[in-house]
């Protein structure tokens, strides 16, 4: 058992025993779902079905139904792709990077953050696939033996790197998440009374029994997977940024893109975690495990990554002037003062100013304010991608080809639809899966639990 400084705020409030932890996490799964869950699920499902309808229409008709034109070949689709991948960065960062840094507060949030990651990456992966137009030839992105004169995929292309990066990230995150889930499914299995749920959780828990040797392996696997997932997190969004940075379009061709995209991804991912968890902790009665201190820690991450993003924006602006390249300078001048000025300034306000408010302790410990900022940040990060993608290509070298992008209702429908699909997945997760990492929470109960910290003999042992 590890001890920590007594002046550190406890991570688990209240006087919980091991059994209480089990009860608190399993109760929402075993009880009947509250009416609110059905209402939210219904809304999400309707939106998801509308989105699926739009996708089906798009696949049947062709991507001409999007508002794209000859100049602007990438707009909402890739914006949404990058937005969702970015959101999908928080979960693995929390569970892998913070594991390596031995940050115990991650244990309250890693399970749901990683679920969010996986669902967000699903949504992200959807966009390049449907952008192919002909979904049924999607397997052409894989290096498979074929009869086209044996034509291979182009391993020199960042788009192909992206295929490898996203699929590796998705599958490794999924495995990492599931390996952590197995012991917790076993807990639910051993408590289940109804035969159907007993059977279901029995299959899901893979017959986990909690033997000492298995735990020994479990800890090694978690550590090594965290070690592998850490560079993976950073590589994925770096490679997403290569999609732009390796081109010669002014506004895209910048070397700061990889770190700037990674920081932006973590920034938006944590904002999404805040949005979801602030609602979830309340709805599922998990206030003792996810409390102000956790929110504050996440807000500090938002503040730091937000500041990196802000610095990157200003660096880009400065370099566009300092480089002396007139095309580059115009690209940025056009962003700030051209026809898309409103998108640029929305992005600046949401991403540069709002995280700076987190310097104030009172604000970063306010749950309501955090919820508000988390939504602002996600709007800002969507605009960031829109600004980078659309404003850079809508006016490039040839003025006669300048154009504007107006989204069609299919553009909007597919985007809103993915939000619906995401929430359908997330609500199902919250209903049937243990939303806290039970086995991990129990290991810190004695080191960071309130009742143990307040006990008079806490300091004696070390």
């Amino acid at each position, binding site marked *: 058992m590890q001890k920590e400084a007594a002046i550190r705020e406890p991570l688990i409030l209240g006087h919980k025993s091991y059994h209480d932890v089990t009860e608190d996490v399993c109760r929402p799964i075993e009880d009947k779902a509250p009416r609110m869950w059905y209402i939210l699920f219904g809304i999400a499902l309707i939106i998801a079905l509308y989105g699926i309808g739009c996708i089906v229409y798009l696949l049947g008709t062709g991507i001409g139904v999007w508002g794209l034109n000859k100049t602007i070949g990438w707009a909402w689709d890739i914006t949404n792709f990058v937005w969702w991948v970015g959101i999908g960065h928080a979960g693995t960062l929390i569970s892998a990077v913070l594991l390596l840094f031995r940050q115990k507060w991650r244990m309250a949030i890693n399970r749901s953050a990683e679920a969010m990651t996986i669902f967000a990456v699903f949504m992200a992966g959807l966009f390049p696939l449907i952008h192919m137009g002909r979904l049924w030839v999607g397997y052409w992105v894989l290096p498979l033996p074929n009869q086209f004169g044996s034509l*291979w995929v182009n391993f020199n292309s960042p788009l192909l790197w992206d295929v490898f990066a996203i699929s*590796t990230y998705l599958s490794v995150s999924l495995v990492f998440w599931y390996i952590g889930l197995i012991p917790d499914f076993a807990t639910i*299995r051993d408590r289940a009374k109804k035969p159907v749920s007993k059977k279901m959780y029995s299959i899901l828990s893979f017959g*986990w*029994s909690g*033997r*000492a040797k298995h735990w020994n392996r479990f800890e090694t696997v978690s550590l090594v*997977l965290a070690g592998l997932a850490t560079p*993976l997190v950073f590589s994925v969004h770096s490679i997403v940024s290569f999609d732009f940075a390796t081109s010669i379009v002014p506004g895209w061709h910048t070397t700061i893109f990889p770190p700037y995209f990674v920081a932006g991804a973590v920034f938006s991912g944590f904002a999404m975690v805040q949005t979801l968890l602030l609602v979830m902790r309340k709805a599922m009665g998990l206030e003792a495990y996810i409390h102000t201190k956790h929110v504050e820690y996440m807000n500090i991450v938002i503040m730091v990554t937000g500041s990196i993003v802000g610095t990157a924006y200003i660096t880009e602006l400065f370099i566009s002037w300092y480089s002396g390249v007139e095309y580059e300078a115009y690209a940025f001048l056009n962003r700030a003062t051209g026809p898309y000025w409103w998108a640029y300034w929305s992005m600046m306000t949401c991403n540069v100013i709002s995280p700076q408010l987190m310097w104030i302790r009172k604000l970063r410990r306010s749950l309501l304010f955090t919820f508000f900022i988390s939504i602002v940040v996600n709007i800002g990060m969507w605009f960031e991608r829109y600004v980078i993608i659309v404003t850079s290509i809508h006016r490039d070298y040839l003025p006669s080809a300048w154009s504007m992008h107006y989204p069609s209702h299919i553009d909007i429908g597919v985007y809103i639809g993915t939000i619906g699909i995401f929430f359908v997945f997330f609500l199902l997760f919250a209903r049937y899966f243990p939303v806290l990492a039970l086995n991990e929470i129990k290991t810190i109960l004695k080191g960071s639990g309130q009742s143990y910290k307040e006990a008079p003999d806490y300091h004696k042992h070390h």
Partner: protein
Amino acid sequence: MAEKVIYVMYDDEEVLKDGAKVLVSKGIKIAEVFSPFPIHGIDPIIGIKNTRLGIMAFLYGLTGLMLATVGMRFFMVTDWPMNIGGKPNFSYLENMLAFVPVTFEFTVLCAAHGMAITYLLANKTLPGMPAQNPDPRTTDDRFVMEIRMSDNLNSSEKDIDEILKNTGFVEIDKKEIK
């Protein structure tokens, strides 16, 4: 042949650990410990060696690295030297930088999945496997020590009971298993 097994249940991992130390010092072999979460420091006491899965992960990663290198050399240089902007791929080394991202991703892919599959197989935790913990409470808040009589031929059941008496267990269960 039926075998006698003693299951000793504790409600705190530290108490179990102290009890295990006493048993081991008296020469009793503990066959297994079941717990709802990893008990740090139990492995050396009951004689569990550290897992070698980390080494396996490294080997899987190495395999991935090699496959990616050999694969991309074949696809991009040998089989079809793709000519991009008048710059065909004449040798692997000249184009190696462009292959770094995929090499890295594939290494991680093989290391992570190889290790995860090995882990599940080594544990024999696979879909549809039956649960083997002696009591359903061991995944909640109870910790169980399993002592097999066949491992302790020099001690009688009474001897073990005598030692266990002062270890602070909450329940004790004796079973005949096949």
